[in-house]
């Protein structure tokens, strides 16, 4: 009988010799790729403001829609997943990463049919982001409301 499923000295040795992620490199790549995506977003925003005279919520909404559109398109072409492999978090955090997380399962699971494959699996990565995004914004809204009662 060997009921104990743990060997601390072995685990210690494993973590000692396992290769570590190169943090400096990962951070640098994430920084410049993520930053570039945000710069492009900002450029789109300025362009919409100056040439089309958009402002406020309509301006930010339109900018997001354009970025999501570009992200999805690049994902369909197989370009965005390459950017993702290179940049890691730098491609996930901007809104184009959200587009990628919806489009990639939709493309991958379409072989299992449009309803049970594409549609059902579409949000399997983005689902948690939406859930916690909604909960987070509700929480922040409540705090804002309560703080506003006193000040």
């Amino acid at each position: 009988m060997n009921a104990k499923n743990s060997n601390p000295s072995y685990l210690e040795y494993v973590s000692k010799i396992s290769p570590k992620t190169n943090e400096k490199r990962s951070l640098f790549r994430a920084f410049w790729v993520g930053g570039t995506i945000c710069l492009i977003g900002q450029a789109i925003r300025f362009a919409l403001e100056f040439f089309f005279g958009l402002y406020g919520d309509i301006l930010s909404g339109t900018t997001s829609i354009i970025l999501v559109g570009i992200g999805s398109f690049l994902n369909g072409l197989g370009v965005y997943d390459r950017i993702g492999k290179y940049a890691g978090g730098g491609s996930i955090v901007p809104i184009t990463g959200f587009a990628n997380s919806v489009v990639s399962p939709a493309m991958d699971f379409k072989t299992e049919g449009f309803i049970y494959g594409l549609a059902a699996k579409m949000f399997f990565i983005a689902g948690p982001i939406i859930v916690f995004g909604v909960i987070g914004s509700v929480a922040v809204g409540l705090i804002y409301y309560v703080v506003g009662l006193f000040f």
Partner: protein
Amino acid sequence: MSTTLFFKNKPAIIATSTICGPKESQGNLAEYIETKILDDTFGEKTYEKAECKMLSFTIEKAIENAKLSLDEIDCLISGDLLNQIISSSFSARRLDVPYLGVYNACSTMSEALLLSAAMIDGGYMKNVACATGSHFSTAERQYRYPLELGSVRPPQAQWTVTGAGCAVVSSKGGFLPRITTATVGKVTDFGVTDANNMGAAMAPAAFRTLVNHFEDTGRSPEYYDLILTGDLGALGSRLLKKLCDDKGINVNKNHVDCGEMIYNIDEEEYQGGSGAGCSAVVLNSYVYKRMLERKFNKVLFIATGALLSTLSTQQGESIPSIAHAVAIENGVNYD
């Protein structure tokens, strides 16, 4: 208690066949692989269908190489990594032969060889086809994230081999490599929870089976020309050597790992190959051919498997692993 089977009639591996995807076909063993496909969908609509087609293709090819017809195959023993081993079962549907589906993750090849040798040695069967395969894209879809997501792989990760291998084991053999003994592994778990670090999870299982094999047979590591582990990868191999060193067993001279051999690691394979197809391809291509040439005469094949599922990982379970050892030898007891 002994966990080793000693085969009296010593069944022979009379023929093999292998098939590989584009990446493996450019690897270190390219010249030994029988069928190389340039398109990893193999002309099919889905990767799952491609995996199944590769498996049935290589089974048919091995049977052809053995100069047997499908009617002469008493049993197909096969397994793969997909849920409910569909690639194997669907291959068996296509080939219409008696079928035993087996699953021990990436150690399925050695499990199949062990079972076929026992069936033949006992006189119940004459010719048995043993096959396993895997596909990078189906494994990614099932175990990890969608392919198009482009997620970053950690440096301790391995790369699932797109390939399949089949060996035909037979009671009639002549001067061919024979299966002489086999050690059934025990499920071993040292508490590794990182599903990206399969090598670390499986090394203890390989170590335990090695120790049991040497104790049961009275052999030492020097007895073998080659101790061939399944898919521990570079990191797992280092861990296995460390475990052996601590126990006073020296495998440094003759241990190699299929996962380390298959790719000329240049980009994202990191620690090497993995998957049921990894050991099946290496054993049935390079190693078998070298045995026929008498370059290797005594090989101990220990394919290792991580017995986890996506569910067990999400529920916080550590990764139990297994390894079965099969000794394949030249020049023994010819009739």
